[in-house]
């Protein structure tokens, strides 16, 4: 098993005829992800990926005619909120929004609709998720993964790859790796993803990659302590040396006021008996010390 993506994933790629959509659709298909449809309004009737994938005008058609159950969005920021709304209105259960630079107020308006539809949104501004050996959705390089039993959740993009690579290099495979995105307003939080891992019998240990800003890591630490006390878990917090109040690349990474600092997060994690690595490369060793074996 795995979470969010897997063998049962029937993916529709929204924005499949765009530059990003075309490139990553090919990568995902090559990895083994079952792409059943693409959507580009006005290009319905065409096909993509060398004729293997039908293109529809609407997500609703992709659901009713191709049986899509999962969507990934490569639509530019101006159209991405509507693309999310379209996906959940069409009954898509899991939506990954890769698009970055979506205004926060747009996401505020979108979220109640996602929740009302009972759907799950990952992102925006996220790298997606991979269940090694089964499917990858998003932009995480497929080559760095190894099948296994470690669940990984991260707020960052390339930092995620770094850790996945370190785990794979150490012979520690992953059940699913999820990037939730670093924007101020994201569809799924650490806790949402940890909840899924808790219910996944194939996930035996956890890695959480946080960064400065907000209090999502503190919340996750408290939740983990209460709901999954037995599961080995290692964390990492990026931004220990970041100066307070200065913007670090994206809106998610501001230290605001007294909270959101790396030290507050590290303290909260340690209180919850979660080991915190000082470098991504330390993570495999800390997992081993917590009793996790190599694949």
């Amino acid at each position, binding site marked *: 098993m795995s979470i969010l993506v897997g063998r049962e994933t029937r993916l529709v790629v929204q924005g499949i005829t765009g530059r990003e959509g075309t490139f990553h659709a090919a990568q995902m298909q090559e990895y083994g992800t079952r792409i059943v449809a693409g959507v580009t309004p006005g290009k319905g009737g065409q096909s993509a990926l060398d004729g293997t994938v039908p293109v529809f005008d609407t997500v609703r058609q992709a659901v009713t005619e191709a049986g899509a159950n999962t969507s990934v969005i490569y639509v530019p920021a*101006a159209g991405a909120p509507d693309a999310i709304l379209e996906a959940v209105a069409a009954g898509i259960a899991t939506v990954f929004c890769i698009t970055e630079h979506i205004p926060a*107020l747009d996401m505020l308006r979108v979220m109640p609709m996602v929740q009302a539809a009972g759907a799950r949104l990952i992102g925006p501004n996220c790298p997606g998720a991979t269940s090694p050996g089964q499917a990858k959705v998003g*932009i*995480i390089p497929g080559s760095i993964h190894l099948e296994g039993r470690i669940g990984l959740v991260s707020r960052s993009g*390339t930092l995620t790859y770094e850790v996945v690579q370190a785990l794979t290099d150490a012979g520690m495979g992953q059940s699913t790796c999820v990037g939730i995105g670093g924007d*101020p307003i994201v569809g799924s939080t650490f806790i949402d993803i940890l909840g899924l891992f808790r219910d996944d019998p194939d996930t035996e240990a956890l890695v959480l990659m946080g960064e400065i800003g907000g209090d*999502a890591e503190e919340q996750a630490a408290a939740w983990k302590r209460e709901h999954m006390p037995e599961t080995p878990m290692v964390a990492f917090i990026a931004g*220990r040396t970041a100066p307070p109040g200065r913007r670090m*690349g994206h809106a998610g990474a501001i230290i605001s006021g007294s909270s959101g600092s790396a030290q507050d997060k590290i303290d909260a994690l340690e209180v919850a008996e979660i080991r915190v690595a000082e470098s*991504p490369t330390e993570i495999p060793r800390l997992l081993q010390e917590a009793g996790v074996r190599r694949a």
Partner: protein
Amino acid sequence: MKIQEADAKSLLVAQGLPVPPWAVARTASDARAAAERLFSAGADQVVIKAQVLVGGRGKAGGVKLAGDPAAAEEVAAAILGMDIKGIIVRKVLVAPAADIRHEYYLSAVLDRAARRVLYMGSAEGGVEIEQVAEERPEAMTYLHAHPHLGLQDFQARELCFALGLGSHLKDFVRIAQGLHATMIANDADLVEINPLAVVRETGPDGGPVERLQALDAKITLDDSALHRHPGLEELRDLDEEDPVDIEARAEGLSFIRLEGDIGCMVNGAGLAMTTMDLVKRAGGQPANFLDIGGGARSDKVAAAMRLILADRSVRAILVNIFGGIARGDEVARGLVEAREQQERSVPMVVRIVGTNAELAAEILSGIDGIETATSLDDAVQRAVAASRAQVAGT
């Protein structure tokens, strides 16, 4: 993006909020002229306030009263040129000093965890609100606006009564709704009025009347939404920006200059912060934060390199790229190009992994002054060593 008090006030006025008149002056004599106009319009005193985008200007001496035009000029002369937390004061705001009866706090801010706009109010305004929130939490009132309906009338009333402003009900409701309108109209992350003051003024019949006035305003805008508000980009205060920041933004790079001597170029904010953390842990000092973003082309890499080298204190450069959307060979080519145009010779440690990393290694092999590394820890160690060697060699 933060904007100056005067610009924030303009955005509030555009939504119909009550703000006393003000003028912005860049010289002491302009400040005097502005003060003269306010005195002849009936002001008893004026307040001169440094326009800087950092907090604590009051404590730093950047806010002063003046009782006549000559005093206004003198005070303005003292404030202009002042250094407040590293920012040189280039402008002052001149406004009539209000006859304040009581100061309140009111703000609307993006609440990430709740995914709502959060309203915060307090009858203890005019001070640092973080302190009130921490020391006397019962003095704060919080409520969330609806993501589609905004702040509803009854919520504005609840807030009004909680703050004990019942005698100003209509005006308060209009002001609170105006905060939401300001947020929506400008895609703001934060709209703050502190103080929102009850001031005594002379009424139409000559007798005293009490009114609500927004005496100070702070607004931060959502960078991701600036493109749909063309007028707002003009409010960016270039006076307070490092020219390097301006160039970085033009190139679409995310760049922050720091104190150290090891220039860093990384793709992704989280990885960039991690790289800096590791540099510090290894005993080095990062000279900057630099995220070249996803899918960085070679010309963007070259621009990033120029930004790093423009900092004369940089003694070594660490490039850390995990290829995903970004392709390693593109980055490598950009580095080689940049190297060729480079005037000063700074040792460079390059780690490129992921997509097309092998091609990148080929491109970089044998180029003078470029060391390659495969592990992140190793790359960091080498960069720190290279910067030390430079210091030793100076």
